């Protein structure tokens, strides 16, 4: 579906909105918003193919953040003076903007430091409920021995370790859905694992290593049948495709600002309203209470209940601007462009001798990234070789050791694109990858 044609300044892309992909010319134009792309690395022009780790930030985002700091710095939700009022309005408008970007209401969106903290918030909220905190209204979250938490073998450590720890704290059992050789979830195994004991399923929307999109609808359906909660890790989908969390019908979701043109230090947690209101607090302290007695305290409703202490205000403002930028460019057109880049990358690398790409093959649904193994050359040496040509890719386990173990390897090289990535950059990467084995004498 094409995005609306309402394009806000300072976004430069104004092409035919019926086309569901950016064009090379669009990308060339919007690259001007990312001055870092002009820098050189080791004497070569930068080819930034590590957006899966963290994205670059357009000037509009940096400007919004700086403008807020320069003109509106004041405590939010704590002051009554004019500047505090202004800052609070700006802060809450940012929340509404980001919530709207992922299809939910403002009061269902909690600011966090990053996606990792969002996932920990849910896990500790559940622990606290299991200890009796939150009383009867939180009883639905209580888990213990005999209950099961389900994850998948492709999860990022941030969507695995918090659940391991929750299992340790509560006595619940962690179950893991395995992967097919092409990287897809074993849905038959999922259907077996998800059952009466399942209380929660935590799954990533898009794999940060395989690039595939998980069948969230199927998993949600399985969860609904047994009354389990679904937690979606939207870290790698929110930046790259139009996202409607309400339509996906998940219970919780997390994202990270720094992967979607926003600054570091900010992320968001979505929680279905009635769940967020029922979950006991996680971080406690100032600004999340109504009454504090010496021996106990009463807490504000969500989202304030989960936002203890002074919030990441200028970062929220910047993230809101980032989502405005993305919407103005058009998420469907971004997704279209990145799909094409992903296919080009896949095709180019797969054609090279001695290279194995993880995940689904050509023509299948994928985002714009590819993780691969170069026969006879360690991923860090591959990365070093590419870096020498200014090509910045990620090497290692990408915070997904179990996934790598599943495929019998410890490390891969990952090239990941974003809306500002050009076809020439992809081609440069493919060419460089083609030279790796010769350099290391692996042919």
């Amino acid at each position, binding site marked *: 579906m094409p995005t609306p044609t309402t394009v806000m300044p300072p976004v430069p892309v104004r092409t035919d909105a019926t086309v569901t992909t950016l064009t090379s010319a669009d990308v060339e134009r919007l690259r001007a918003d990312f001055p870092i792309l002009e820098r050189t690395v080791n004497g070569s022009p930068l080819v930034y193919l590590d957006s899966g780790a963290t994205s670059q930030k357009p000037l509009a985002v940096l400007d919004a953040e700086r403008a807020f700091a320069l003109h509106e710095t004041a405590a939010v939700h704590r002051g009554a003076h004019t500047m505090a*009022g202004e800052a609070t309005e700006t802060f809450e408008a940012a929340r509404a903007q980001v919530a709207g970007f992922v299809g939910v209401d403002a009061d269902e969106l909690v600011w966090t430091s990053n996606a990792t903290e969002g996932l920990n918030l849910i896990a500790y909220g559940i622990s606290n409920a299991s200890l009796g905190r939150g009383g009867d209204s939180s009883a639905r979250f209580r888990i213990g021995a005999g209950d099961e938490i389900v994850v998948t073998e492709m999860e990022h450590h941030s969507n695995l370790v918090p659940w391991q720890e929750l299992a340790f704290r509560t006595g619940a059992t962690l179950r893991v859905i395995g992967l097919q050789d092409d990287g897809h979830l074993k849905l038959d195994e999922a259907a077996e694992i998800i059952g009466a004991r399942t209380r929660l399923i935590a799954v990533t929307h898009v794999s940060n290593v395989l690039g595939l999109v998980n069948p969230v609808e199927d998993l949600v359906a399985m969860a609904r049948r047994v009354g389990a909660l679904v937690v979606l890790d939207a870290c790698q989908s929110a930046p790259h495709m139009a996202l409607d969390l309400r339509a996906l019908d998940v219970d919780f979701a997390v994202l990270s600002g720094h992967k979607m043109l926003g600054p570091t230090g900010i992320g968001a947690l979505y929680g279905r309203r009635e769940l967020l209101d029922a979950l006991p607090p996680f971080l406690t302290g100032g600004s999340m209470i109504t009454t504090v007695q010496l021996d106990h305290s009463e807490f504000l409703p969500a989202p304030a209940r989960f936002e203890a202490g002074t919030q990441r205000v200028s970062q929220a403002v910047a993230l809101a601007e980032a989502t405005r930028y993305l919407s103005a460019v058009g998420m469907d057109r971004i997704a279209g462009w990145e799909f094409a880049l992903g296919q080009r990358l896949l095709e180019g690398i797969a054609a090279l001798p001695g290279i194995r790409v993880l995940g689904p093959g050509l023509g299948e649904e994928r985002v714009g990234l590819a993780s691969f193994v170069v026969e006879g050359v360690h991923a860090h040496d591959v990365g070093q070789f590419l870096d020498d040509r200014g090509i910045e890719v990620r090497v290692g386990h990408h915070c997904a050791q179990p996934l790598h173990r599943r495929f019998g390897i410890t490390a891969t090289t990952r090239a990941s694109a974003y809306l500002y990535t050009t076809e020439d950059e992809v081609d440069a990467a493919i060419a460089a990858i083609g030279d790796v084995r010769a350099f290391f004498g692996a042919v």
Partner: protein
Amino acid sequence: MTGSAALQGLYQQVILDHAKEKHGFGLRDGAAASSHQLNPTCGDEVTLRVHLGDADTVASISWEGQGCSISTASASILSDLVDDLPRPDVRLRIEAFRELMQSKGTIDGDEELLEDAVALSGVSRYVTRIKCAMLPWVALEHALLEADGALGAEAGAAR
């Protein structure tokens, strides 16, 4: 003159007077329902009781609490306003007042309907103070809902 015109608009004399006189202050017995509301921004609270004439008329309200001059005046004004008023009219006034408060200064308020409460119209320009003015009105709204619940429950028990 020590305050700007805007400030004088916020703190009109009638408000300062109500804040001192506190009509309806002091909780009275025999209420149909009550509500306790807290303003989380400041920690102020109001307890408001609604006294019914018959099931369809608010005879009066009585209230206690501590708050700023805006919330205190607002409770006092509200007390004058709902004196022996049919409940639909009370609801109408609450709605009209809420609209006034959310107007960001774009409307003046219907003096026929809201009487002294139009003096609070200046509050709508001060985003941090709207909750102050609304506090007793929200309490009344909740108390009426509670009264309904209680009546409903009684009616149900009687059936």
